[in-house]
């Protein structure tokens, strides 16, 4: 008979450290980040609507929920949730990375991979690039300390000032391509991890992952590139 200790409410250590549990943490935190990224990408496209709309949008984010809650409450909730998701995601990634390294200390002399995609092979180092980029990005456009227009400029001016520099745009391009690859495999992997894939769905899931990764990457790349070539001024 099934021996389930249903009296036990909290997940004990053995289950929490299971490799699959960590994958679930990775999938759920990844999905939270992805949902945020979709909203973020749509928001960025408002750069095309001009300084007033964009700055107004930035204002609005700070005011969501007012007057029911004090200003910036919702913004801070979003920030805390995102930070928790990033920490959880990186914790699971590092822990599984170490487990994989321990699982094969002696490498093959001859090795040939046939099934893995570029995206699946670069999840870990690509993730490191993303992590570093997120830090730089916050310093650039959120805190303004790494931005040419500085901390006191309006959000619109900071974006224009940053993206007029080809080197800055280059950094964004590299990071967003890394994001595209990360999501190409991540969407498929998360579907598997959450037990939602099967033989018939596999093709659709993979096709969706590719389309989603391309759309998100392109959506993020269009504003910086438009500033660089002068479509947005």
């Amino acid at each position, binding site marked *: *008979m*099934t*021996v*389930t*200790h*249903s009296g*036990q409410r909290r*997940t*004990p250590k*053995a*289950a929490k*450290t*299971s*490799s*699959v*549990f*960590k*994958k*679930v943490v990775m999938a759920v935190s990844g999905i939270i980040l992805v949902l945020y990224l979709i909203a973020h990408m749509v928001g960025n496209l408002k750069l095309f609507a001009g300084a007033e709309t964009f700055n107004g949008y930035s204002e609005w984010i700070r005011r969501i929920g007012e007057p029911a809650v004090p200003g910036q409450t919702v913004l801070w909730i979003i920030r805390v949730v995102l930070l928790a998701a990033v920490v959880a995601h990186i914790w699971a990634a590092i822990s*599984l990375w170490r*487990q*994989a390294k*321990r*699982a*094969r*200390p*002696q*490498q*093959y*002399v*001859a*090795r*040939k*991979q*046939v*099934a*893995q*995609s570029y995206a*699946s*092979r670069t*999840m870990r180092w690509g993730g490191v690039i993303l992590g570093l980029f997120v830090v730089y990005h916050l310093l650039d456009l959120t805190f303004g300390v790494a931005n040419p227009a500085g901390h006191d400029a309006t959000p619109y001016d900071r974006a224009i000032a940053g993206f007029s520099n080809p080197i800055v745009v280059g950094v964004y391009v590299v990071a967003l391509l890394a994001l595209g690859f990360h999501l190409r*495999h991540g969407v*498929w*992997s998360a*579907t*598997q*991890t*959450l*037990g*939602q*894939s*099967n*033989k018939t769905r*596999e093709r659709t899931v993979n096709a969706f992952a590719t389309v989603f990764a391309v759309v998100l990457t392109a959506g993020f790349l269009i504003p910086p590139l438009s500033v660089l070539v002068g479509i947005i001024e």
Partner: protein
Amino acid sequence: MNLKLRVWRQRSAAEKGKMVTYQVTDVSPDMSFLEMLDVLNEQLILDGEDPVSFDHDCREGICGSCGVMINGRAHGNGLFDDHPQTTTCQLHMRSFKDGDTIDIEPWRATAFPVIKDLAVDRSALDRIIQSGGYISAPTGTAPEAHSILVAKKDSDAAFDAATCIGCGACVAACPNASSMLFTSSKVVHLGLMPQGQPERNDRVVNMIHQQDLEGFGGCTNIGECSASCPKGISMENISRLNHDLLGALRAGARPKS
């Protein structure tokens, strides 16, 4: 045909191993890969050298004993476009050309310590089975086949999963050295059958727990396993395992430690 073999030689788990080059001559294209290794070993014995150890039993692709990395691929699967995925014993020398150099290595994983040369200890897979790969239905006379009905799609999927022969190629091929494809095939094979229901939740939590204890890596859904599996076990089983595991944890099943 004449071949140059580069074979991993390692006297025991405690000693360091290395690739050693041998020439084998007069290999018939009709020989299986293991027969070719037999030819090499006879030659080594005549020369007074230690023959190469490798595992094998049925030599007809059903027992799961054999398995080596051939030119960087488990069982050589994925190297030959015109060749179905198979076991090392069912790979034939006609897939190679005269004058080829062939690299032969053991499965490499912490959980599969080398016993000698190409033979590795795969009892970790047996312990995963022990931790949950069973049912508690009373045995005895076979019951009337129609007394318990199983949906066609479930019986098909369960049968596909049940074709896993436990060779360990999935672990060998996985960049993370994860045994997820193996474990999932066992979980799905029993979990889809009515007879497998009583232990369904415990099975999945305990088998995953044992898999981690054995030192296998975690699955990142790369797919090298399925592409190397002689039975073509599908990635869908991994998704099904994950689905079962999440359900089991929600229902309160916990690994017994």
